[in-house]
């Protein structure tokens, strides 16, 4: 058998000397691979954006809705259900979510605007271990009130508002001396002005992170909150424009930093308060105020609303709605060890627990994306297959034109296998070079599309900075596909070349 080095030298030499043949053979491969990588990279990126909006790695278990005479009699999701789900071998983890079950009302200062918004119905809680998006979120997103916190010192809260309206605290820049609590002097005593009026301010030792709670008159860490990227996109797409507010940068941390850091993203929550007229929810506690802070953006947060550590929600539900509300989960997020076990798990869930999986938009989009990707990849594969036929045609012509040369190789010691490998090697090399050119053209086209998108497409929710994600396997797949199809195209000509009788090849014209 021919040594590999000699084979490589012969293949390269033969390819370089017949440029016309190379161009004719490689043209289709270049076009095919360019479309192949472009389609794959675009569907990969679009799929990634969709998965960011609708995470696919978890499923939500919910109880089917049931009511009798206007009363909700849906099956209760509790710790017992969670434990039962955890016994399944296909389940990696099961973490409950709990909705805030009573009215709440938020108020905060943003860009000098006094924003008011409903929190009740738009807030839930989840185990902090589930939200590990970045270091800041990991450090901040936890149940501060259950910890032994040395900063939980005594303080004097501000006087209650006569209208029970939620009070923004602490004052935002430019809104001075809004009463939020009596400031403490160096001696730890309340401070007063020259008229004997108390000086209001945040009395807590670390006012950026703590507020003075009106229930136990102690400083508490603000309730950490995360929001989903959907909220930012909704803000950018509609809210910011209609309210004349600045667009949030895709890098949210950068956006927040420019506005004074996370401490600027604070707001108050009036538990038990609402702006909805006609709300007739009965609550077991008088309304009170807590303060929260947005600590980050996470796809784990509820899509429309805010998410906080579940312990806060449990305590508030217990305080305002009783024990039943504090032990009933709204859903259970189940992470499966293997996505292919989803059908088995769903069937068991329905048959044994009378529960179901929440309809997942993510899965629907994933299916649509899969079909789109399949169609696009098929189109590009058809182009490549046609180019393989073109390669076969060109190589058949080449073998006929070079039959004397191939016959001579046999005469000086080449085996049939050697001749086959020479022809296949040339086809593979054409495929590889064509593939490289195709990938290059694909990347250039992608850059062009991204440029046009950035400069000529209007902004819309989730508009990506790039429409393409060239993962390593797309590059490698493109090259492998190019070489593979080229070899496939060269196979029959190579077979013909190798089985040609050398005597005839050497004597016939």
């Amino acid at each position: 058998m021919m040594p590999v080095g000699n084979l490589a030298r012969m293949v390269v030499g033969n390819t370089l000397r017949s440029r016309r043949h190379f161009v004719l053979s490689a043209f289709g491969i270049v076009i095919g691979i360019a479309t192949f990588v472009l389609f794959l990279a675009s569907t990969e990126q679009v799929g990634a954006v969709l998965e960011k909006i609708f995470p696919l790695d978890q499923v939500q278990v919910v109880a089917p809705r049931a009511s009798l005479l206007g009363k909700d009699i849906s099956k209760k999701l509790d710790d017992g259900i969670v434990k039962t789900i955890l016994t399944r071998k296909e389940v990696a983890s099961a973490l409950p979510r709990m909705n805030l079950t009573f009215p709440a009302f938020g108020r905060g200062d943003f860009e000098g605007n006094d924003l008011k918004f409903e929190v009740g119905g738009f807030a839930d809680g989840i185990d902090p271990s589930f939200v590990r998006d970045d270091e800041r979120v990991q450090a901040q997103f936890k149940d501060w009130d259950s910890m032994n916190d040395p900063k939980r010192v005594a303080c004097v809260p501000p006087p209650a508002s006569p209208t029970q309206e939620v009070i923004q605290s602490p004052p935002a820049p430019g809104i001075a001396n809004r009463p939020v609590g009596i400031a403490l002097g160096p001696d730890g005593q309340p401070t007063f002005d020259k008229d004997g009026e108390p000086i209001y301010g945040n009395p807590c030792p670390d006012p950026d992170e703590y507020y003075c709670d009106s229930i136990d008159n102690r400083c508490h860490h603000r309730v950490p909150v995360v929001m989903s990227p959907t909220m930012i996109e909704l803000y950018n797409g509609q809210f910011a424009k209609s309210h004349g507010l600045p667009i949030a940068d895709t890098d949210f941390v950068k956006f927040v930093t420019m506005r004074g850091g996370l401490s600027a993203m604070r707001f108050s929550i009036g538990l038990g308060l609402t702006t909805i007229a006609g709300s007739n929810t009965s609550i077991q506690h008088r309304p009170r105020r807590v303060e929260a802070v947005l600590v980050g953006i996470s796809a784990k947060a509820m899509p429309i609303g805010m998410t906080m550590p579940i312990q806060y929600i449990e305590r508030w539900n217990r305080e305002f709605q009783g024990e039943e509300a504090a032990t009933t989960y709204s859903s259970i997020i189940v992470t499966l060890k293997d996505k292919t076990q989803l059908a088995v798990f769903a069937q068991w869930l329905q048959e044994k627990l009378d529960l179901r999986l929440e309809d997942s938009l993510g899965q629907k989009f994933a299916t649509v994306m899969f079909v789109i990707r399949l169609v696009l990849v098929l189109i590009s594969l058809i182009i490549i297959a046609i180019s393989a036929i073109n390669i076969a045609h060109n190589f058949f012509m080449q073998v006929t034109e070079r039959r004397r040369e191939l016959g001579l190789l046999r005469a000086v010691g080449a085996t049939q296998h050697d001749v086959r490998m020479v022809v296949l090697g040339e086809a593979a090399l054409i495929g590889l070079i064509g593939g490289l050119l195709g990938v290059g053209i694909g990347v250039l086209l992608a850059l062009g599309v991204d440029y046009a998108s950035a400069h000529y497409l209007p902004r819309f929710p989730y508009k990506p900075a790039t429409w393409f994600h060239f993962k390593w396997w797309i590059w490698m797949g493109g090259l492998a596909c190019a070489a593979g199809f080229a070899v496939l195209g060269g196979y029959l000509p190579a077979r013909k070349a190798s089985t040609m009788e050398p005597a005839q090849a050497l004597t016939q014209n």
Partner: protein
Amino acid sequence: MAPQAPVIRLRDVTKSYGVGAAKTQVLRGVSFDVDKGELIALVGQSGSGKSTLLNIIGGLDQPDAGEVEVLGVDTLAATDKKRAQIRNHSIGFVFQAFNLLDHLNVLQNVTLPSAFARDPKDVDGRGREALRRVGLSDFANRRPGELSGGQKQRVAIARALFGQPTLLLCDEPTGNLDSETGREVIDFFRELNAKDGVTLLIVTHERRISSVAKRVIAMKDGMIVETTDEALAAGSAGPA
């Protein structure tokens, strides 16, 4: 002392081309032996089957039936790899049409067989030595297109000699050369046979080659019709 095995041993070799009515019988039971060191001229009219016979001996073509033994190897039973190995190591071919590769220079053409050899030693040195022997030392970097017909044939001979073959098979080696150049080539073959002991089987129309050959085998219609030397060692000269 035991008699040396023949370099070539043919028995009842037949070959035909085409099928049905278009079938042409090219060889009809050819048998003869060639001993080491012989210089044999294979003569006959066009279509007599001499080139086909040469190709079968060189393993470039396969007979329909018969026995072909070259350098002790039954080439019909041998694998393609084994036949290629014999061609690479022990047989040199010289063709009427030279069959040089225009995209390679002279030295690369001469050393072409090394591409298919395992661990060939001193490829360039051996190539240059082969060129020296044919008097083309200064032409190593030329392209075949820059050479005359005689020079091309000498390059082809140098390529055939590159592997220091035991057997040289030449198919009308002077057919495309003028008489003077043809004479030089014939002289070279004679010298090669006399000094190096290389066995030569030359298919030719050239009377001068016949005159220098130790044996002349004449073919007609696929059969051996005459041999000018002693009787064949074994077998018959043609079908009964």
